[in-house]
């Protein structure tokens, strides 16, 4: 069954990554640019609004979107491969930095709490962080192998807990401000040699470029946003409306949480104390609240608990996001086809998940628990995938003038030509940040370029090998066929009060399916999309249970239609010696109250209905009414029997 998720679940998945940066961004950015860090973090979070708009426009154009698809359509395959290679770098780093940061928080809590319990042990934060990070990655590896539905459940729970934590912390912080006052972060930039990278020595001549340098260091606040394009495919109908809702939730939550926490950390934690909490800033915030020590410790424990959960959730999101990206590549034969192999039980692309998780584990071991090192390497892929995406969507505005479902605003019409000023401004801003980051974030540049080059080469080689192997360029979905001898398994999944069966045969004639999907309500109705393989005589007995090329092509189109509409469908393939018997038996077995057909090129609609009515009657064992519908362009027949 192909199922879809609500905008709330989609937002929770994205936020598990994007909002988790609140736990480490403050420390990293302040180390890099000085006390003005919260202002730049806030600026980056406001900048997320136009970037989210960019993703809405791109995703509305391509359901299976994301940077790869958009850039490929606009600028060609090579640049698309570069952009997605850079993005993969960040997905790997997201998992690593989140898991390691979670470990640092736990180690910090242990080191705060153990003396209170008269246990005089000290936990080595970096070693503990590495071990814990590997455990987290292993846990979410297993979860992702089991499938997205379970993972999005956890994301919702984690984000709810984050909401509670934010309410408690902000209320307590308000009381602390009332008691002690608040030190607004100074608007002063203190770059280190490390944070200026190859611009080292030019501190005093940077001028306004310094603002861009600082902005670039804070850019990791937007990490995880690309996942929105990956989960769009899974989003339920109405897709665009839900995408906008998810974007609004993501923007508001991230701005409120990460922005406020960054300001509170600098405003409430004394400067000298804050340095000791660079790797676990929220713990420092908890321990700086007004109140007794035991209460501070309790808040720290709560903050750490929630932090561990959301940072672990970010690991999950990074695995899901990178799996989605690799799937898009595999569909285009840019990854070896063997990587798309579906898990026999859970139907997930387990080999891709294994690949991503392996790279994350290696990164965790190599970083040796140093969050700042990971932070310095971070955001290379984020910024460049945004640059490529913005450039691609901008180019598409001129290249493809078809009507858009939604556009980034600020478009000026001059002499009937639309000038996308908003989009162009966003592209220029992102490009500037990207170029400045290339010079200043040297670790990110060196490691990012190396990683990107490696992935680009891998994609290029895979693509060429796949081209040799296959002549046909059309994408085919992978399907898990459950070869049970009866409909018991399908019936278990069919539980809604209404059931509709749509019979399909020709991938070029799915008008009736699309029409049905338009008005279909996944909440109340199960939609079974059915096709039959007709075999006669002994051929039927010897039939192997696997899809042939035509069936794969047909169901690929079915899945694409379902994704486009965001409606849940249950594909079903039946081997039979008579199509009408097959349809009737399947429809009666699932308890369909409506059976929908397309217009046949061979049979008149009357003949189709007549034959179906006869077959239905001969097989019917109850008195249940059924509606037959035949839908085609300009054709709509409905008969109640």
């Amino acid at each position, binding site marked *: 069954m192909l199922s879809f998720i609500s905008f709330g679940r989609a937002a929770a998945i994205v936020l598990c990554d994007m909002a988790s940066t609140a736990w480490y961004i403050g420390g990293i950015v302040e180390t890099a640019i000085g006390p003005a860090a919260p202002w730049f973090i806030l600026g980056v979070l406001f900048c997320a609004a136009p970037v989210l708009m960019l993703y809405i426009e791109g995703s509305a154009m391509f359901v299976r979107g994301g940077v790869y698809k958009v850039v490929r359509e606009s600028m060609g395959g090579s640049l698309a491969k570069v952009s997605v290679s850079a993005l993969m770098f960040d997905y790997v780093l997201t998992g690593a930095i989140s898991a390691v940061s979670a470990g640092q928080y736990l180690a910090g809590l242990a080191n705060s709490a153990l003396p209170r319990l008269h246990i005089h042990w000290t936990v080595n934060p970096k070693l503990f962080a590495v071990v814990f990070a590997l455990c987290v990655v292993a846990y979410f590896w297993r979860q992702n192998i089991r499938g997205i539905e379970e993972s999005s459940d956890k994301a919702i729970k984690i984000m709810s807990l984050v909401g509670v934590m934010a309410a408690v912390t902000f209320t307590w912080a308000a009381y602390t401000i009332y008691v002690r006052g608040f030190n607004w972060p100074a608007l002063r930039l203190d770059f280190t040699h490390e944070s200026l990278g190859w611009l080292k020595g030019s501190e005093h001549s940077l001028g306004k470029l310094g603002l861009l340098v600082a902005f670039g260091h804070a850019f990791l606040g937007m990490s995880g946003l690309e996942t929105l394009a990956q989960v769009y495919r899974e989003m339920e109908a109405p897709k665009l409306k839900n995408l906008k809702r998810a974007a609004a939730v993501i923007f508001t939550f991230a701005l409120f949480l990460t922005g406020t926490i960054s300001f509170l950390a600098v405003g409430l934690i004394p400067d000298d104390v804050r340095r000791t909490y660079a790797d676990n800033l929220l713990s420092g915030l908890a321990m700086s609240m007004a109140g007794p020590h035991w209460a501070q410790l309790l808040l720290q424990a709560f903050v750490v608990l929630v932090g561990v959960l959301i940072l672990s959730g970010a690991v999950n999101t990074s695995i899901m996001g990178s799996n989605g990206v690799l799937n898009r590549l595999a569909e285009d034969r840019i990854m070896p086809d063997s990587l798309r192999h579906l898990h026999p039980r859970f139907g997930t692309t387990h080999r891709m998940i294994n690949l991503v998780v392996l790279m994350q584990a290696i990164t965790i071991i190599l970083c040796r628990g140093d969050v700042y090192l990971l932070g310095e390497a971070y955001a290379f892929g984020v910024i460049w995938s945004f640059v490529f995406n913005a450039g691609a969507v901008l180019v598409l505005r001129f290249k493809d003038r078809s009507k858009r479902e939604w556009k980034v605003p600020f478009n000026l019409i001059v002499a009937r030509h639309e000038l996308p000023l908003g989009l162009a401004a966003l592209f220029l801003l992102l490009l500037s940040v990207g170029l400045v980051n290339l010079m200043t974030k040297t670790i990110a540049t060196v490691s990012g370029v190396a990683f990107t080059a490696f992935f680009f080469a891998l994609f290029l080689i895979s693509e060429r090998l796949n081209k040799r192997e296959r002549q046909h360029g059309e994408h085919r979905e992978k399907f898990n066929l459950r070869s049970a001898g009866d409909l018991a398994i399908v019936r278990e999944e069919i539980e809604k009060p209404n059931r509709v069966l749509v019979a399909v045969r020709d991938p070029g004639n799915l008008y009736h399916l699309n029409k049905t999907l338009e008005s279909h309500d996944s909440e109340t109705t199960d939609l079974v999309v059915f096709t039959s393989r007709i075999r006669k005589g002994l051929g039927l007995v010897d039939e192997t249970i696997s899809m042939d090329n035509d069936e794969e092509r047909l169901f690929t189109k079915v899945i694409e239609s379902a994704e486009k509409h965001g409606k849940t469908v249950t594909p*079903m393939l039946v081997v039979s010696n008579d199509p009408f018997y097959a349809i009737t038996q399947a429809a009666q077995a699932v308890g369909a109250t409506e059976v929908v057909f397309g217009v046949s090129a061979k049979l008149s609609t009357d003949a189709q209905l007549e034959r179906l009515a*006869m077959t239905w009657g001969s097989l019917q064992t109850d008195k249940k009414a059924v509606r037959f519908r035949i839908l085609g362009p300009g054709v709509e027949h409905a008969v109640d029997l």
Partner: protein
Amino acid sequence: MSWFQKKTPEPASESPKTTPPARVGKGLKVSSILTEDTILFPAEGHDKAAVLQSLAAAVCGKAGIADWAAFLAKVQEREQGISTTLDTGLSLPHARMDGIATILAGMAILKKPIPDPKQTDLAIRVMFLFFSPNKQDAFPLHLQLLRGVSSLLQPALIDQLTAASSPTAALELVKKLEA
């Protein structure tokens, strides 16, 4: 994935299935459109075409239609299309005709099954012929009758019909099952 095949005709059984058949249309019963005059027991040796011809003549004769050949031609034309014979042993030829206001129907019961020329693996044991008005608003009733007759004439009833001694007995069997 499931494996479905046309079901094979069930062997004759002593106790017929008692599942009530679906009613045809809004209260229309199959027995109400049949009379003793339109239930035939063709002699052995007739093929499908001959049985169809006899049945068309009887149905049209009962309705007072002189040009029964036109009705036969129409149903023969329909028979060239998708099969109207079911695995149950029921053949269900039908046609939508201009100039009639109600459904005209007849049934031929074959003591010895005859093969369907289009599907030689299927044996015809009962042929149910009907004509319905060629009007758009009558098409649902046409389809309901197709479903109702095929639902009613299951192997168990067909077994009983082929064992019946007369049209009256056959009609009683249909009425009894529909009651």
